[in-house]
């Protein structure tokens, strides 16, 4: 396999490059940029995010756990305080609510770290430091015989620079 990296100075040109690659039947590519690329999802393989499900599950788990903690610990003493029975579910709503948001927010954060694979100090070889500044980029993995055709597609879409990576 061969890896090509194309640099774009404009987001519209990046979108044009991705569309051209998709139309030519290639799917082994990745887009990079210094701003959110979510609006390019029509040209990309991955859509949506599992972070939503993880957050939802975290919220339910947090609600159940914290509410249960209130009930279970109140049963240890069975004390009537403030004229309210030991198990005062209206009061426990507050703790359950906070617990739901607590676990859901941690789940959302961990979800981003896990699914976006954010856990290293170094960046991969195909990354160019310009991607965090002013430029956008496409990294495409191709067979050696597709090299010229892919280069033509990328250049036609407005790539200002194309590098061949090992």
């Amino acid at each position, binding site marked *: 396999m061969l890896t090509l990296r194309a640099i774009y100075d*404009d*987001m519209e040109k990046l979108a044009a490059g991705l569309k051209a690659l998709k139309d030519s039947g290639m799917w082994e590519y*990745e*887009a*990079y*940029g*210094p*701003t*959110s*690329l*979510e609006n390019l*999802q029509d040209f*990309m393989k*991955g859509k*949506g*995010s*599992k*972070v*939503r499900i993880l*957050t939802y599950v975290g919220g339910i788990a947090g609600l159940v756990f*914290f509410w249960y*903690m*209130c009930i279970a*610990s*109140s049963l*240890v*003493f069975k004390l009537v*305080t*403030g004229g309210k029975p030991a198990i*005062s579910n209206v*009061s426990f709503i*507050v*703790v359950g609510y*906070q*617990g739901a*948001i*607590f676990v*859901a*927010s*941690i789940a*959302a*954060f961990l*979800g*981003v770290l896990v*699914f*976006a*694979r*954010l*856990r290293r*100090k*170094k*960046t*991969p070889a195909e*990354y160019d*430091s310009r*991607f*965090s*500044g*002013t*430029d956008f980029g496409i990294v495409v993995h191709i067979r050696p015989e597709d090299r010229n055709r892919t280069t033509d597609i990328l250049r036609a879409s407005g790539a200002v620079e194309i590098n061949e990576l090992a």
Partner: protein
Amino acid sequence: MTREAMHRIDDQVLGSLGRPSRGYLAVLAICAVLVVAGAVAFGIQYALGMGVTGLSIPVGWAVYITNYVWWIGVAMSGTFISAMLFLFKVNWRSNISRVAETMTIFAIASAGLFPLIHLGRVWVFYWILPYPNTAGLWPNFKSPLVWDVFAIVVYLVLSLLIFYLGLLPDLATARDRTQPSWRRTMYAYLALGWTGKYDQWRHWTRGYLLIAAMAMPLAMSVHSIVSWDFAMGLLPGWHETIFAPYFVAGAVLSGFALIILLLVPLRKALHLENIFTVYHFEQLAKLMILMALILGYCYGVMSFMSWYSGDRFSRQFEFHRDFHSRYSPLFWAMILANFLLPLTFFSKRLRTNLAYVYVIALVVEVGLWIERFVIIVPSLAYGFLPSSWGVYAPRLPEIALTGLSFGLFLGLFLVFVALFPSVAMYELKEQAIARTEGS
């Protein structure tokens, strides 16, 4: 064109992270002195007990709790403002969001000190945390004070998460634009290998949106719970059903005012005048008008309800506090500072004058501190029996520990702006792209 604009944003924001000026170091030194003085005062209080403060029966809650409520208000508003403006897709939010979020984190740190300082026996603070222990001791989950612990911890965690997530793309930019040094190593570790890949943005955008969506109701609940610390009590002046929205309105107003207080010197010191423009201050001033009107309505409703309820104690307390007590001047000062003066922002000439906006923001902050003091102290000082009335005046430990909280907040903020981008660069770049597409 867009590329040049994006380049300028990087240069300008990252350029502000250079060597600190003398003025910066002088302010930082003042903050350090305040923190040390406060620490000494706390040491004395720790060794000798709460008797060294002005607290005594009947006033057991005073400046410490006033500080706590005030700082929690500021903290509540930072993430709330950032998340609210994000969810409503307000464009000018990008310029101020980082400062608002940073403000929240350090304000929670300052706020969190006061319940501990106020405890007296601070060494047993962990008894309020729910953990299985050999004594079988569990907190009373029906108490608003326990809810408070949960609310603050959850709000701190969520604020840190949204703050750090928002910082990730900018940490990567800083990592890639900094010469090899300890700073670069720090950015590299903190950026967690962010590359700006589509998949990263996809999950990041969803995660940020979800946490922002949770921040809104959480922020509301945090200050509502703080208000219930009082509203659940039976004292006249505390036992008010309007307290939750009243506290939230005051908190948001204090947040807008503090952002102005931080941004005006920051733009000058870091030469960010074209990022924090007069337009941003004008928008903040307009929002202050809204919050001042809501606050004014709350003041009116509370006085009206004291009269309309027919409750003799409530009526007499309000009348005495507002017109005849030693706290009456403070009550009217708070009406002037929090309700009347912000309304002068109806004048475009005044709200676009930065010096005027700054002064009013300062007055509002003082007014909101006074408001919390007026809520807390008179209700305790003037109880149901005149024979048990008392007075409260702060002593040196309260003053020194208040100074500590301000020194800590400002010091941490200054350290942050020297080390990390004080503006969300990736958002400004998105705006630059949107402007080009729109033109």
